C-alpha cells in the first residue's frame, strides 16, 4: 500500500486553514490539520476534519451534460464545449456582448477566477462579471 499526505488549503470558510489530505493508493481517505499553518496551528473545525467526504461523494458530476428537451443527458466534452461556444457566439452576435453575464466563483482558485474574468472581458467583451461576495 502507498500512503502519502498532501499539504493544502481548506475550501470552506475564509480562514484558509492548512490541512493534510491523506491519500492511500491514490484515494482520498482522511484529513489532518496542519501543525505548521500560520492560521490554524494544528486545529481544524468539524467541517475541516471531514473535508475529504464531499470530494469522494458518489454524487459528484463526472461527465458533461447537455439539455435534450426536459432532461440533461450525458455528452462528450467536444459536443458540450462546442455547443456552449456556439450558443454564446450566436447570442453575442444577435444581442451584443452585454446580453451575456458571468458569475465566477469564490470557491474556485485565483487562477480560475482570473481566466474566467479574462474570458468575459476579452472574449465576450462585457464587464458583466460578478460572484457571490454579496451573498
Amino acid at each position, binding site marked *: 500500500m502507498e500512503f502519502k499526505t498532501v499539504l493544502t*488549503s481548506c475550501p470552506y470558510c475564509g480562514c484558509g486553514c492548512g490541512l493534510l489530505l491523506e491519500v492511500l493508493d491514490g484515494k482520498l481517505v482522511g484529513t489532518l490539520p496542519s501543525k505548521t499553518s500560520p492560521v490554524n496551528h494544528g486545529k481544524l473545525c468539524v467541517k475541516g476534519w471531514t473535508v475529504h467526504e464531499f470530494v469522494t461523494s458518489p454524487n459528484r458530476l463526472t461527465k458533461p451534460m*447537455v439539455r435534450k428537451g426536459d432532461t440533461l443527458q450525458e455528452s462528450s466534452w467536444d459536443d458540450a464545449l462546442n455547443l456552449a*461556444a456556439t450558443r454564446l457566439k450566436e447570442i453575442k452576435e444577435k444581442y451584443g456582448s452585454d446580453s451575456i453575464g458571468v458569475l465566477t466563483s469564490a470557491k474556485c482558485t485565483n487562477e480560475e477566477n482570473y481566466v474566467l474574468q479574462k474570458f468575459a472581458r476579452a472574449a465576450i467583451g462585457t464587464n458583466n462579471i460578478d460572484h457571490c461576495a454579496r451573498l
Partner: protein
Amino acid sequence: MTNSIEEIEGADCILIIGSNTSIAHPLIATRVSRAKARGAKLIVADPRKIPIILQSDLHLQQNLGTDVALINGLMHIILKKGWQDQVFIDERTENIEALKKVVENYPPEKVSEITGIPVADLEKAAEYYAKAERASILYTMGITQHTTGVDNVKSLANLAMLTGNLGKESTGINPLRGQNNVQGACDMGGLPNVYTGYQAVIDQAVRQKFEEAWGARLPDKIGLTATEMFPAVLDGKMKALIILGENPVVSDADCLHVEKALKAIDFLLVIDIFKTPTSDLAHVVLPGAAFAEKEGTFSNTERRVQLLRKAVEPPGESKPDWQIIQELSSRFGYPMDYASPRAIMEEIAKLTPSYGGITYDRLQGDGLQWPCPNTEHPGTKFLHQGRFTRGKGLFSAIEYKPAAEIADEEYPFQLTTGRVHVHYHTGTMTRNSPSLEREISECFLEMHPEDAVELKVADGDWVVIASRRGAVSSRVKLTDAAGRKTVFMPFHFLESRANILTNPAFDPIAKIPEYKVCAVKIQKMDPSDKSILSSASAH
C-alpha cells in the same frame, strides 16, 4: 481584514459585531479565546445569543438593522467623555466636525430606544473599546447584508478612526470573509467594475494596459452585479449566463425570482462539481474538479495567498475549471493556452501591482499577504500604517435608517438568516458529507418560547413561514436566543429555502441584499397538508 488573524490574540478589546464567529469562523474564534485568556475584554453585538457570548464581558443585543444607531451611540459617549484619540484624528483624518455634528444627535437614551440595548451597557461598551490600548473589530455579513450595509461598514471605520485603532498591530476593521476564496475572487477582478487588484475598468490607462496584455478591445462600461443580472434576464436584456461553482437558486435573496429568471433564459452554462438546483436548469453542465484534485491558489480573509496542491485525480471525466474555461474560450474564438496555474499566476503578477511579488516558488512556506509589490517584498501583515490609501482617513457622517422591511400587522415577525456549525452555504458540499449531514439534516426555525405559546406551537412542530415573496415550511426550535418576534433560520436547506423569504432590496452602493432582516408571518401547519405551502410559493 486590515490586520492579520494572529494579531487578534494581541488585542486588549475585541468588538465582534454581526459575526457568529465560533460557528462560521471557528479557527478565528480560537484566537479570540486566546486574547480572552490574556485578559482582553470581549464585546459581542448580535441580535441573538450566539455561542461566543459565553466568553464575552458584554453582550449588546441590538434590534435587527440598528447597527448605525448603535455605533453612533458609542461614538457619542466616547466624544462626551473625551476618550477619542485626538492625535490620530488631527494627524491622520479629516471631516471630524461633520461626524461630531451627526453623532451629537445619538445620546444614549435615544440609542437605547432604537437598539433595545440598556444605557448602562452602551456606556460600558464605549469605555471598554475606547480605553483599550489596542482594540480590534471583527465583523461579517451581519453588518454587510443590509440595505445600509455600506453605512454600517463606514460607521465601524468611523469608530476605529475616532479611537486611533487603525494602522497598528492588533487593531483594525476586520471583515471575516465567508468563502475560502471570496477575497481572491475579488482580487482577481471577479467584479463588474475592476480588473485584478481593484484596477478600475473605467480608468483609461488601466484599460489600455489590459488591452495590450490581452490583445483585445475591452469594454469601458461598468457591468452588472449578480443582484442586477437576474432582473435583467426577466427584462429580456440578458440572454445567457455562465455560472461557475455557484448555486443562486438557493443562495440568492428572493430566490424564486432567480429560479424564474433561469427558467426563462436562452442559454445557461453551469460548471460545478455537483448537480445543484441551479445546474438542473442549465442547457450545458460541465464537471469541474474539486480543491483536492487541482493546483492553484486561494487568498484567505487576511489577504494571505496560499498554495493549493493536488492530492488525487478528478473523478470520471471531470477536470480542473481553468482547463474547462480555456477550452471554452479557444472554441469561442479567443484562444487561451496556459500550461499550468503557475503560468496563469505569472501573468496575474505582471498585471497586478498588489500581487507583483507573488510567485509559486515564494508561496511554498506560509504563503504571502498582499500587498506584495515585488519579489523582494515580504508581504503586508497589516494595512494603513502611517497613511491610508487615499491619504487622510475620511470620517463619514451617517444617519441611522431602519431596515427596508419592518414587521407590521400582516407580517408581525422579523426574520434573520445565518449558518449552523456543520453546514456551509447552500449545502452542496456539507450535505454531501455523511458525517456532517448526520449532525443536522433538516432546517429549523428558532422562535422565542413566548411567541410559540401565542401561536400554539410546541418545539418540533411544523410551521409555515411566509413573507411577501413566498413561503416555506420548517420545524420550530424553541429558544430565547433572540428577543420576542425575532426568528432565525439557516439558509442551507433546499427543502426549506430561507431565501424564498428574504428581501432582495439592496444597498444602493454595494448592491448587497438585505438577507438579515425581512418581515414574515408564521402559522402552525399540519405536516400532511402541503397545499397552503404550494399556494404561497406560487405567489
